[in-house]
């Protein structure tokens, strides 16, 4: 039976060039659906993975209670110091708690592609421990900033999307000039930031205290110890969140929105593709009425005919799906864009076309192909032999 089906499929495929337009419709239609689906989700995946890879599970961000983002949080100097003394924080090489008070300030830079509107980016004032707490962050050009001076190091992502912050340039923030002395790369959300010494930031911007405290946890129970210790402290109203959880939590809104958009768009396009596929396969079956009738008269069964039509539909759909994935990959993979993060600052990320995404796209293509092929296949198999032959 299988050999019958394959034999018929072979005949079908050979006749495709005769009605190439209908077959092309299926291929292009499915390429479109898969390309759009893949591109939209590549955007979500890229954003998510940038933020997900930021932060570790053994580090904790402490902010003022209920702030939810570092931007909304403000801790005074006493609170910052108090937090650093909390139980559960690991000691650094120098015996002091491995923790860094950090201050977020919003600055504005001009985007590379849109000179009229500036966009907000994050300036992070840090203590020296900040580097020890983030071993994945490396200076890749120039040097780190000198404490006490108005010097900046900028993340790789900033350079990709914005202008005016290149090595050696002077950036004007709030009436003061800062020199870019280095470029760093950390492979995560920090690549969208500008870093400087927290004390210089404090004095220049007239602030004291910090936005948050980043601390390394001591052992597997460090998190619990720190949380309960901080809750018990009457002088503090703070929240402690694992660094990784903090950043991945930030993507929730974006992921939901993009996910919803991708879902709706793909669903509608997929329906359209199903109708187009049905149309083409019906036409293909109609064009082959005589051949099918002849085959049946010779002795081929109805089921092999059905299978052969479905196989043809599946094959065309698969080709279309692969084409679509390829288009999405070529056009979009690695494309660097930025969008508004939770702090109302830009987060730079790349489109990421992953194998998993391609697999999902192909599955969609196959499903559409099957639905589009089924009804015409049934019609072809049920076709009465005698009346079809009469048309010869």
């Amino acid at each position, binding site marked *: 039976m299988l050999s019958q089906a394959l034999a018929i499929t072979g005949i079908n495929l050979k006749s495709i060039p005769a009605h190439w*337009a*209908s077959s*092309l*419709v299926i291929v*292009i*239609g499915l390429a*479109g659906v898969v*390309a*759009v689906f893949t*591109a*939209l989700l590549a955007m979500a995946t890229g954003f998510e993975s940038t933020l997900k890879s930021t932060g570790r599970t053994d580090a904790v961000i402490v902010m003022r*209670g*209920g*702030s*939810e983002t570092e*931007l*909304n949080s*403000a801790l005074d100097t006493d609170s910052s110091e108090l937090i650093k003394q909390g139980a559960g924080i690991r000691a650094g090489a120098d015996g002091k708690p491995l923790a860094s008070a950090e201050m977020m*300030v*919003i*600055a*504005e830079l001009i985007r590379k592609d*849109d000179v009229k*509107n500036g*966009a*907000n980016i994050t300036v992070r004032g840090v203590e020296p421990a900040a580097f020890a707490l983030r071993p994945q962050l490396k200076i890749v050009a120039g040097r780190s900033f000198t404490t006490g001076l108005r010097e900046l190091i900028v993340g790789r992502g900033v350079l990709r999307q914005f202008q005016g912050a290149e090595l050696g340039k002077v950036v004007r*923030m*709030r*009436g003061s000039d800062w020199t870019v002395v280095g470029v760093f790369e950390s492979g995560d959300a920090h690549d969208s930031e500008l870093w400087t010494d927290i004390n210089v930031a404090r004095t220049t911007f*007239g602030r004291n205290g910090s936005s948050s405290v980043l601390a390394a946890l001591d052992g597997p129970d460090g998190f619990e110890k720190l949380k309960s210790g901080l809750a018990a402290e009457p002088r503090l*109203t703070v929240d402690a969140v694992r660094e990784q959880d903090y950043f991945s939590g930030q993507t929730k809104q974006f992921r939901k929105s993009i996910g*919803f958009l991708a879902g*709706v*768009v793909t669903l*509608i*396009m997929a*329906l*359209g*593709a199903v*109708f*187009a596929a*049905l*149309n*083409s396969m*019906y*036409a293909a079956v109609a064009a082959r009425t005589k051949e099918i009738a002849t085959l049946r008269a010779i002795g081929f069964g109805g089921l092999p005919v059905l299978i052969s039509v479905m196989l043809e539909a599946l094959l065309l759909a698969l080709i279309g799906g692969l084409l679509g994935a390829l288009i999405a990959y070529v056009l979009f993979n690695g494309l660097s*864009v*930025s*969008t*508004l993060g939770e*702090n*109302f600052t*830009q987060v730079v990320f790349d489109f990421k076309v992953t194998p998993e995404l391609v697999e999902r796209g192909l599955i969609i293509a196959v499903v559409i192909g099957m639905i589009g092929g089924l009804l015409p296949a049934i019609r072809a198999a049920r076709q009465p032999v005698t009346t079809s032959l009469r048309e010869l």
Partner: protein
Amino acid sequence: MTKSGFVIANLFRKRTRTILTLLSVIMAFLLFGLLQSVNHVFNAGADFVGATRLMVQARVSFTSPLPISMVAKLEAVPGVARVAYSQWFGGVWQENTPLFVFSVDPLRYRDVYPEYVMPDAQWQAFAKTRTAMIAGRQLADQYRWKVGQKIPISSNIFPQKNGSKAWAFDLVGIYDGKDEDWKKRTNVAFISHDYFDEANQFGMKGRTNFFILKLSDGTQAEAVSKRVDALFENSPDETKTQTEKDFNLGFVKQIGDIGLIVRWILFAVFFTLLLVVGNTMAQSVRERVPELAVLKTLGFTDGSVLGFVLAEALALCLFGGLLGLLLATTLGAMIEKGSGRQFQLRLDAWVWSIGVAAIVLMSVAVGLLPALRARRLRIVDALAGH
């Protein structure tokens, strides 16, 4: 029977094929309608605000507050008729539904936004009652708030002096928009800045995110903006002043180039649709060569035969396109309602008009080649070939 009757009858020559093609057209225009309304909301929502107001924010970011004491200096700037201010409250309704809530000076805000319509008694109540709140019609309808109720709203930024982030306000008025566009903007609530300033725990006294300047002369927007920014340059509170419209646009731009994404998707969709419908039309004409030749023998000119084919393409695209847009309107309204106004998906006149334009363009694109072929048909060859 009439000429149009004939055209429609021909459409249903192969019923399944026509219906499936129609369904593809409907899907394409459904997507078109939804995406374009999203795009429109993001990008064109700014137009109707007019040029009579300027937004002043701290130069680095609107998240960085400015001192309210700047009001006096702003009022003195030539070209400024009135100054209002507003501060983002970070409102949260019930568990975690975000709300647009700003703290303002009631009467100043009323003066600067005449497009908001509310009985003067309610404005006065707002000004006189410390814990007062007014809400827009859309907002009030959505959560069924009534004037006189005490509305519990939390802030995700500002705790009260007692440390709690739960606040409560007395709803003393509900405002409307003066026309269709402004009616869509009634999804914001306002509380009294004096009360907020005094009652919140932070040392952010006497500060605000935005100043809104009402211009005495709408054509002077650029000049006045420059004047304001020059006034505060090199001070600790440097400003960035722009028209309300530019502010809105700039904000959207920060989210990303929504327009570009929408365009790419629609390009893919319509390219495919062109193929699908074009193929159907081409097949349909190919099958009918003898019939078209007969029409010519009956005395229909080459031009009228072209007309028949084009009309057929138009009928197909028009029927499917209009149905698709209608579906988008319905679906959009449903999504808008179901997501609690989060996704503004109402298809307005603008989207409908470009939709119809797209329908016509598509009809010509899919119908032209087959129609030309029909026109070119030579009677003798066509009849002999059968």
